[in-house]
């Protein structure tokens, strides 16, 4: 019985993460955030009226806000269930660093919501009457910004795991911290604001670099 190497162990953990997310066993899985995202995009024209110019101007921002809110939905099942199950204890006993597990979790969380969200942004963009160039910028911005949202989500989920009302608290904590990504991402849609995407990606990278260490620290402190 020789334990497999660390990369293959992490691959095993990633496969479990994704299976849990996509099977939807834990509260809605992948589908719920996407439906929520589409519902917000659909509600907006009802609320502000069908003026195409207004929709085209505000639509990109609406997609960004909807994406941010959709990314918050699965927070309570990112870390908390595995703490309850004792999985983090068992990984620690096998010498698998929390940092590595958190990094894998950021990756699998991103895979479980971002591609679906970017796909759903196409019909959402159509509902809001965005033109092709704007929609392309939205997609590019989402590609740059969602990794940061995933990292932020896992970090905050780790900090709030085990707290009473942790899910609601996690949502409240993520929103202000996600503001830079939102500003740069949605700001890239303004005329001449394309460089916002680079700043959005930069914010994402900072969060990605921070997440494994902050998340692992929170998990260890929460034991």
């Amino acid at each position, binding site marked *: 019985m020789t334990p497999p190497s660390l990369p293959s162990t992490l691959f095993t953990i990633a496969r479990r993460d994704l299976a849990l997310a996509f099977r939807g066993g834990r509260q809605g899985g992948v589908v719920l955030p996407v439906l929520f995202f589409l519902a917000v995009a659909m509600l907006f024209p009802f609320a502000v009226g069908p003026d195409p110019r207004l929709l085209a101007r505000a639509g990109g921002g609406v997609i960004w806000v909807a994406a941010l809110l959709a990314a918050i939905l699965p927070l309570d099942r990112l870390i908390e269930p595995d703490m309850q199950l*004792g999985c983090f204890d068992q990984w620690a006993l096998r010498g*698998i660093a929390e940092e590595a597990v958190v990094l894998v979790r950021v990756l699998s969380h991103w895979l479980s919501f971002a591609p679906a969200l970017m796909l759903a942004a196409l019909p959402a963009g159509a509902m809001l009457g965005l033109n092709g160039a704007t929609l392309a910028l939205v997609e590019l911005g989402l590609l740059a910004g969602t990794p940061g949202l995933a990292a932020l989500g896992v970090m905050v989920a780790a900090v709030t795991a085990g707290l009473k009302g942790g899910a609601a608290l996690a949502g409240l904590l993520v929103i202000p911290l996600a503001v830079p990504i939102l500003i740069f991402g949605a700001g890239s849609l303004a005329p001449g604001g394309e460089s916002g995407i680079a700043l959005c990606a930069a914010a994402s990278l900072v969060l990605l670099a921070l997440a494994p260490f902050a998340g692992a620290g929170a998990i260890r402190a929460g034991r």
Partner: protein
Amino acid sequence: MQAAPHQAISPASPFPANTRLAASGVACRRGERVLFAGLALALGPGEACQIAGANGIGKSSLIRILAGLAPAYAGAVERAGTVGLIDERLGLDPALPLSEALAFWARIDGVGAEARAGHLATLGLGELGDVPVRYLSTGQKKRAALARLLGQGAAIWLLDEPLNGLDTAACAVVERLAAEHCAAGGICVIASHQRLALPGMRVLELAEFVA
């Protein structure tokens, strides 16, 4: 407290000869209260120890300190060897069928399908492979966790109330597994308020260390 191993360790021991679990001057604090202090323990290959005491005296806390999952308030713990832990948390996905939930840990521990089936059979779970973990009874869940422990192949077993919910037959199986583990050169620490019949096992009354 160092005692000679009570039984002959088979020469083909899968665990290194320097396998060791030692604690010195360990104290545990919960909130404002020090649960116990000055606890010392030294176990070598083939030795078993039961941690006995009433509810709430700190048996589970001590197990977590020994596992390195919780910091000791004072003192030091020394471990040489891989650690396997059984406590009230299964580590098995409740929605998955038992065999799949165990297969996850088997992949991490590098256990083949054949060995895994053997562990299930040893613990009398052979028929339950298709049953989702959440439908298992308390005793069956405990046995499932023991199957995971067998797969891990750890040298130091830390068992927190392993007999909870088990029937007489299953208790006997746990005692036999623990005895075999020690005979193979492993270390076994069992926190339980029930008496176990394990040859040569020491008993550590936690009440003696209450601060």
